[in-house]
């Protein structure tokens, strides 16, 4: 073994992309990255970036960064989706836009990116932006850990993007079932990129779960009992309990697959005592709670949005809380419905089918509660309500097809077909994506100080709503016609092509909707002076975040609020209308965490470790591990991590902010 073998592991130029599509994608990504870096040098913005964004421990800024990363990855995920649609149109009779191997990497990347980096990114982003404000806190319970979580997320994101430039990605689907993803059938680095990118980002998620749960339990404003909390906060609480219980399963399972691949072990091989069925059970024991982790905060967002824009109390607050807990418990006892066809006996299949159906009950109750919130409300149809409308139509349909597939004997005929693909996109797009988009539009002015252009936002929502139906209803039909998922070509005699063409048109409509959203952002920034949120309360809101100026100051609340009821800000406004005088509160000194680059450094070492393990560069892997440990030790022995703002300073800043000349730090 030469010196260079040890130095560079199995890294070699043989692993550069071989087909034109991947080469084009890698080149574009490299060019964009280089351009961004060059721009930073040209405009001399590195110091500003480091001091104001990369080292910040302000949850609102971390939230903005999560959302920016999620949007960028969303564009990549949609590009993957477009490629899938094009290939499945030309694939009638064996035509080729991308070859089979590339196609399998494309759909694996599509699913992995959308779930782990877009959906999770938007979710953690929105929670960071809103949760502390909404419960009357200044920041999350562990601001430094928050930064570590974000940067580990970025490290995972970088790994998955580098795979396109060298090594290629996993061809094993977004969940990577062995034996296909075992050493025998996939010896190359692709599956390893998948494992380590998720392993690193997954640690970040687990830490966020602990962080946000502690924040809710320990950092609520005085007087805000749990049953006075907004439903969004409840939904985050339940989702974070799911994160804490589920993500360790993912870590362990990916770890075992990693050991199989790195050290020739036999956890999930077909022979020598291994059991791939165990992988499938474990990965779905994580995977099912994961989809509830994604949807519950979206439900929480709709609870806030609907109550606010209907100018009415949320119907059935207590029931909403009970429903959340019912969903939380049930989501741990349904996982087998993802593999009814794996040959478990009828008793087992029937049990899991029934538990799966039972989840439909609390979910349905939530939808009814939102509808009854609309009843006898005074509805302002701003764009978040457009998203809500689309959500009810779309998600309910998806829920129905879910109940269908919960019947094992029906599932035998639609499992792994395009019917399944249509179902899960139905609930993820209709529920998770529409919910997060509604949240972004709703809370945008609170973070940035101006509202988004309404008209373009509504057009975007219509494009997504219509585009979704055109893109996915044909897939339900195709599934019933016997079309399996993940096919890159099929016999022309099947007659499937026309439906794929319709689906392709649907994705084009959605892509236009995305273009409108980007246009909306650009136009809104351009027009921001005429859309300033001068009061901090653009929607006649009900909850505490609307009681601070927009953009929200870096300290959130100049004076920590005291709460006596649900919808505390609404009640406060009502009291003022009745002529009651608010209690005069005193300014006090505030302690805030200092900025630190340690999160970036830890994630940097984690990235090096991941890259090294993938390419078998063992010395670099050791550097990565030791680097993380040493950095953590240095940080934990640092006692000087906070600074104080005096009461006078706060009073000055507060008066400025309320006079409309506020600045964030």
């Amino acid at each position, binding site marked *: 073994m030469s010196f260079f073998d040890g130095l560079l592991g199995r890294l070699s130029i043989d692993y550069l992309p071989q087909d034109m599509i991947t080469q084009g994608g890698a080149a574009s990504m490299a060019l964009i990255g280089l351009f961004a870096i060059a721009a930073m040098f040209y405009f001399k913005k590195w110091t500003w970036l480091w001091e104001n964004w990369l080292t910040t421990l302000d949850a609102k800024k971390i939230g903005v960064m999560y959302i920016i990363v999620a949007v960028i990855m969303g564009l990549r995920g949609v590009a993957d989706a477009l490629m899938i649609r094009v290939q499945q149109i030309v694939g009638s009779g064996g035509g080729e836009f991308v070859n*089979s*191997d590339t196609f*399998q990497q494309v759909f694996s990347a599509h699913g992995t990116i959308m779930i782990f980096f877009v959906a999770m990114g938007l979710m953690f982003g929105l929670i960071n932006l809103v949760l502390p404000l909404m419960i009357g806190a200044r920041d999350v319970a562990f601001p430094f850990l928050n930064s570590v979580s974000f940067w580990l997320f970025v490290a995972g994101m970088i790994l998955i993007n580098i795979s396109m430039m060298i090594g290629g990605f996993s*061809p*094993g689907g977004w969940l990577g079932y062995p*034996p*296909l993803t075992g050493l025998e*059938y996939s010896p190359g680095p692709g599956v390893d990129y998948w494992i380590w990118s998720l392993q690193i980002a997954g640690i970040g998620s687990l830490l966020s779960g602990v962080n946000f749960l502690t924040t809710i339990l320990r950092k609520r404003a005085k007087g805000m009992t749990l049953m006075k909390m907004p439903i969004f906060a409840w939904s985050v609480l339940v989702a974070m309990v799911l994160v804490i219980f589920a993500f360790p399963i993912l870590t362990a399972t990916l770890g075992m697959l990693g050991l199989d691949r790195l050290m020739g072990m036999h956890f999930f091989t*077909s*022979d*020598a005592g291994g059991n*791939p*069925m165990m992988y499938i059970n474990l990965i779905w024991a994580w995977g099912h709670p994961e989809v509830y982790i994604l949807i519950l905060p979206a439900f929480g967002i709709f609870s806030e949005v609907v109550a606010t824009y209907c*100018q*009415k*109390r949320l*119907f*059935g607050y207590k029931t909403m809380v009970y429903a959340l807990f019912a969903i939380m418990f049930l989501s741990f006892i349904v996982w087998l419905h993802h593999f009814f*066809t794996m*040959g478990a*006996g*009828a*008793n087992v*299949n*029937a049990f899991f*089918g029934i538990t799966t159906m039972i989840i439909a*009950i609390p979910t349905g109750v939530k939808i*009814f509660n939102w*509808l*009854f919130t*609309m009843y*006898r*409300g*005074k*509805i*302002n*149809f701003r764009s978040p309500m457009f998203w809500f*409308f689309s959500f*009810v139509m779309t998600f*309910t*349909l998806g829920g*129905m097809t879910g109940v*269908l597939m*919960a*019947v*094992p*004997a029906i599932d*035998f*005929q639609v*499992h*792994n077909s395009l019917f399944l693909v249509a179902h899960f996109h139905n609930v993820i797009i209709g529920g998770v994506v529409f919910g997060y988009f509604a949240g972004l539009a709703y809370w945008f002015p609170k973070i940035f100080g101006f509202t988004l252009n309404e008209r373009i936002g509504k057009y975007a929502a219509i494009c997504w709503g219509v585009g979704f139906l055109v893109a996915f209803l044909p897939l339900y*039909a195709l599934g*019933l016609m*016997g079309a399996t998922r*993940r096919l*890159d070509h*099929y016999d022309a*005699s*099947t*007659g499937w092509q026309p439906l794929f063409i319709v689906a392709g048109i649907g994705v084009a409509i959605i892509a236009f909707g995305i273009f409108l959203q980007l246009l909306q952002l650009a136009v809104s920034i351009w027009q921001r002076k005429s859309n300033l949120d001068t009061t901090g309360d653009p929607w006649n809101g009900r909850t505490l975040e609307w009681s601070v100026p927009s953009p929200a100051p870096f300290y959130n609340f100049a004076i920590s609020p005291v709460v006596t009821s649900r919808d505390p800000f609404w009640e406060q406004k009502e009291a003022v209308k009745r002529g009651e005088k608010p209690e005069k509160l005193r300014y006090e000194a505030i302690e805030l965490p200092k900025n630190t680059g340690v999160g970036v450094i830890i994630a940097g070492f984690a990235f090096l470790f991941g890259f090294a393990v993938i390419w078998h560069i063992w010395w670099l892997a050791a550097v990565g591990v030791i680097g993380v440990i040493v950095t953590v030790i240095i940080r934990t022995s640092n006692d000087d991590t906070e600074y104080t703002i005096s009461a006078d300073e706060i009073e000055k800043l507060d008066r400025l902010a309320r006079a409309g000349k506020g600045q964030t730090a």
Partner: protein
Amino acid sequence: MRGVNVDVLNPMGEVAMKQKNLLVFTTLLSLVVILPVFAMLIIFSVRYNASSKKKAAYKPNWEGNKAIEAVMWGIPCVIILVLSVITWQSTHDLDPYKKLDSDVKPLNVQVVALQWKWLFIYPDQQVASVNLLQIPKDTPVNFTITADAPMNSFWIPSLGGQVYAMSGMSTQLSLIANKTGDFKGSSANLSGSGFADMNFTARSSSQVEFDAWVATLKNSKNQLDAVSYKELAKPATVDTPLLYVLTQDGLYDTILMKYMSHGSHHVQVEGTE
């Protein structure tokens, strides 16, 4: 060339027929909830729109009603209860491991998912074929299924639901064709780069035609034994069906046992060098 066929909704056998009936029934039952939800959404959106000219009632503090909550929990509970009973019963009735009720003697077929084709072994007839499954009409077929490949899924939508094909495991499925014809079969689980080519034809014919087909295979020059199997199992796709006379006893079991050893499964199949 077959016309466009919605296989799941055009069952050609008893199992698929029962599954379709379940699908239709469950869809109709779900509409009991879905349609009122859509109706309420549209009606409430129109009537309570703040910018509509007609003034509607506005009750900003109305947040609960026992009767409504009882109905919104109650009706879904009843529907799910009904569906649960049907689920229990149908899951047992349509268990792939359950043999079909019939006076006709069942046909045994052993299925091996390979990269990237399907091998069908007829142990009682001592023949085998690749990508062509010929079966007699109105005869229950008992499949035992394994793989010498990554995980696959054995699926003939016209005849009934699928079951996974896994190396080192043997799953079972029972299907019956009640009409003659050619039906599409495929693998419903990603198993590597050639997986989209794992299509096969399930051909249901009269008993006479089936017997004639078996006789043709018995006279085939192609022998399927341990050696030719090893060739066949190499990763490759197949353009036209291959037909064999089976000259190795217990080939299916040998394939299955390859994965049961404690060493690597690259152990030689017995009978080869």
